[in-house]
């Protein structure tokens, strides 16, 4: 081996030779240090890397060995995750695992290290190694990592990452930061040919990336989605300009008997005419109709998600990752489902507030008010069960706390817990039960109550309006339908743009052996309960109090006087001011608790 002039000038040549050999032999280790320094200095440091290379002497090659194999890998202007990994691999791993991830083959060992190729005996890794070196035990294997048959023990990128971050590099385990370990994982998969192109590995998608199989990442569908919404918006303009039939459809009459045909459910939804007062946006806010529309979107997107979701503890979170990362339009469908569910809670609350603040809960509508409130409870339960189905670190504590709340109920608490969870702690039984409740029982019940609620609206004389004006102007069925379609189209456009741009939350899969600093907050609509629970008894504050709030709101129409009929059809009727005030107090309290909880978790 040639000795560089710099070292030849040293006063103790023998020691200098030893150090030089150690330097060459462990140049990977030293380059790790160099790249560490450079990486922290500059993320886009491809040029700095090159500068580092020129200062690093390269061992003289054997005649058959292409010296270029020792050169730093070429990196794009804006390096990908795998590019960064390639540089780390070159600096840290290449010494033992080879330039192509072939492992410490004889060809590589002899080619790259020339005279020093007996790694276990030579100065740097022998018994009498210098300070920069370290002893290599003979039992150590240097397995290939980049070949097709390598890494047999790892199933997915997450498992590979877990090994790399804890075990590598051999002489200094745990010295790679998570970011670098991800970059390395990406590069190793790229060498193997199983890195999905264009994918950035991270904790929330790596479990879905197989080590031994290449999956294609679908193209970003956003452009198509925006074109779709654009066409829909144009079509909506066309619909607005469309003239409505002048003729008012007659109430259907049986020609033989001359009797009025009993109207079916759909003619209850859309009678030939309804009073114009009942369909003013300013009055109804369109909230009830929007809730029905969102329920339909939830039904469709939920059914689609069921094609790919796997309700077992081992697979649930991974199948969600697969939907998000690999299923074409999967992330979009999931985001639609998520955002519809969140908006539905808000829209239902707006609908409730509208009914309270227009005094529309009285007289014959008392019962339908209760039906609506039951629907709200169903919506919240559906949201919570759906949230749990992610089965990842993000829901872990909400599930634990939420179900343990049941145990606090006196007498029946433990039995109720076992009924809901299916055992002493959440496991496979809990997941399949939440799944059944979410996709079947609660959905079916909610569907039944939606139909009943809508039917009662007509049965109770339509949406509450002032009696005297009822017959003045009426709008036709076609007009009503047109308004509903417009609301739906506008809703669709907003929903699609939000879903294309804002991803639904996701967290790493639950693992028994680690505790991540996962989000420990409840879903947002339960934050007020979580805040209450911080101050004391779980049964009183977490069960009794929220139930009392719902029961009290449901009882208000029965406890207080109806709004004067003459005042119906207007916002804030005076005769309903007590109910309005009480509702405001409840709403402000819940809102304040929610905000307090949000501030606390910041």
């Amino acid at each position, binding site marked *: 081996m040639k000795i560089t002039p710099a070292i030849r000038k040293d006063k103790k040549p023998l020691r200098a030779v030893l150090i030089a050999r150690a330097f060459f032999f462990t140049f990977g280790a030293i380059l790790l240090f160099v790249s560490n320094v450079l990486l922290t200095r500059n993320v886009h440091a491809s040029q700095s890397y090159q500068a580092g290379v020129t200062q690093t002497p390269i061992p003289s090659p054997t005649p058959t060995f292409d010296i270029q194999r020792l050169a730093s890998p070429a990196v794009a202007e804006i390096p990908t995750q795998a590019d960064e990994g390639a540089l780390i691999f070159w600096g840290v791993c290449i010494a033992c695992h080879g330039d192509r991830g072939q492992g410490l083959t004889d060809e590589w060992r002899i080619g790259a290290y020339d005279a020093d190729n007996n790694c276990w005996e030579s100065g740097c890794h022998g018994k009498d190694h210098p300070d920069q070196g370290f002893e290599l035990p003979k039992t150590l294997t240097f397995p290939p990592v980049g070949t097709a048959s390598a890494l047999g023990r790892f199933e997915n990128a997450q498992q590979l990452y877990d090994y790399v971050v804890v075990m590598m590099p051999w002489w200094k385990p745990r010295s790679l930061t998570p970011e670098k370990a991800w970059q390395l994982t990406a590069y190793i998969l790229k060498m193997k040919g199983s890195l999905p192109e264009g994918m950035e590995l991270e904790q929330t998608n790596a479990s879905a990336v197989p080590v031994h199989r290449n999956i294609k990442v679908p193209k970003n569908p956003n452009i198509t989605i925006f074109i779709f919404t654009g066409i829909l918006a144009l079509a909506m303009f*066309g619909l607005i300009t*469309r003239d409505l039939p002048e003729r008012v459809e007659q109430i259907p009459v049986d020609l033989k008997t001359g009797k009025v045909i009993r109207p079916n459910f759909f003619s209850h939804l859309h009678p030939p005419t309804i009073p114009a007062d009942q369909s003013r946006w300013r009055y109804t806010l369109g909230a009830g109709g929007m809730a029905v529309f969102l329920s339909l979107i939830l039904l469709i997107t939920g059914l689609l998600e069921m094609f790919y979701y796997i309700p077992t503890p081992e697979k649930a979170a991974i199948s969600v990752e697969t939907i998000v990362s690999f299923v074409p339009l999967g992330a979009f469908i999931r985001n639609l489902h998520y955002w519809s569910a969140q908006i539905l809670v808000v829209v239902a609350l707006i609908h409730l507030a509208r009914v309270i603040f227009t005094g529309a809960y009285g007289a014959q509508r008392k019962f339908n008010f209760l039906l609506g409130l039951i629907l709200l409870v169903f919506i919240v339960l559906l949201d919570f069960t759906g949230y749990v189905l992610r089965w990842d670190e993000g829901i872990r504590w909400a599930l634990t706390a939420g179900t343990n709340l049941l145990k606090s109920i006196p007498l029946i608490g433990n039995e109720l817990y076992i009924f809901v969870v299916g055992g002493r702690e959440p496991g496979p039984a809990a997941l399949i039960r939440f799944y059944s409740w979410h996709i079947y029982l609660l959905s079916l019940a909610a569907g039944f109550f939606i139909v009943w609620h809508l039917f009662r609206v007509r049965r109770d004389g339509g949406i509450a309006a002032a009696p005297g004006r009822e017959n003045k102007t009426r709008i036709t069925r076609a007009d009503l339908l047109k308004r509903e379609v417009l609301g739906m189209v506008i809703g669709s456009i907003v929903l699609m743009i939000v879903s294309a741009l804002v991803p639904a939350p996701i967290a790493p899969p639950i693992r028994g052996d680690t505790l991540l600093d996962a989000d420990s907050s409840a879903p947002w609509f339960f934050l007020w309960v979580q805040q209450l629970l911080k101050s004391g008894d779980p049964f009183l504050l977490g069960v009794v109090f929220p139930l009392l709030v719902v029961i009290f709101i449901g009882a208000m129409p029965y406890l207080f006087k109806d709004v004067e009929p003459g005042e119906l059809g207007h916002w804030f009727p005076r005769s309903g001011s007590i109910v309005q005030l009480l509702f405001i107090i409840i709403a402000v309290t819940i809102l304040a608790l929610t905000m307090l909880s949000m501030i606390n978790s910041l």
Partner: protein
Amino acid sequence: MTKPSRREFLRLATNTLLGLTGAIGLGGLIHFLSYEMDPAPPSQYDLGSAGDYPRGLNTLLLHIPAVLIRTDDGFIALSLVCTHLGCTVEYKDGGYECPCHGSKYDGKGLVTRGPSSTPLKRLRVEVNEAGNVILYMEPI
């Protein structure tokens, strides 16, 4: 053809746009449902050292499912998937019988009784440099 009125044109344009959204939506739906969730089964199996399989003996490999026959000339592999409707055939009296619809094959995989009409598939099998038997899931 007369020039369409403004109203007719708008109606036509709106309907076209609505049709287009329907077509794109349907395309998206098909695209979404086209994803293959489960990995394909392995295309080859390493059956271990060739020396472990004595001459003249048939070895049933039910996890594949296939039967490995060592003749004097080398290895022959037959798929045990019934060519009728895919049930796994059972070894019986030197031949194979399908439990589902009663198809029968002889020891070489030829049909001796219907409903099946094609013989059991012969699979490619090789011994590699390391002396291991490699079974490829592809017909010869």
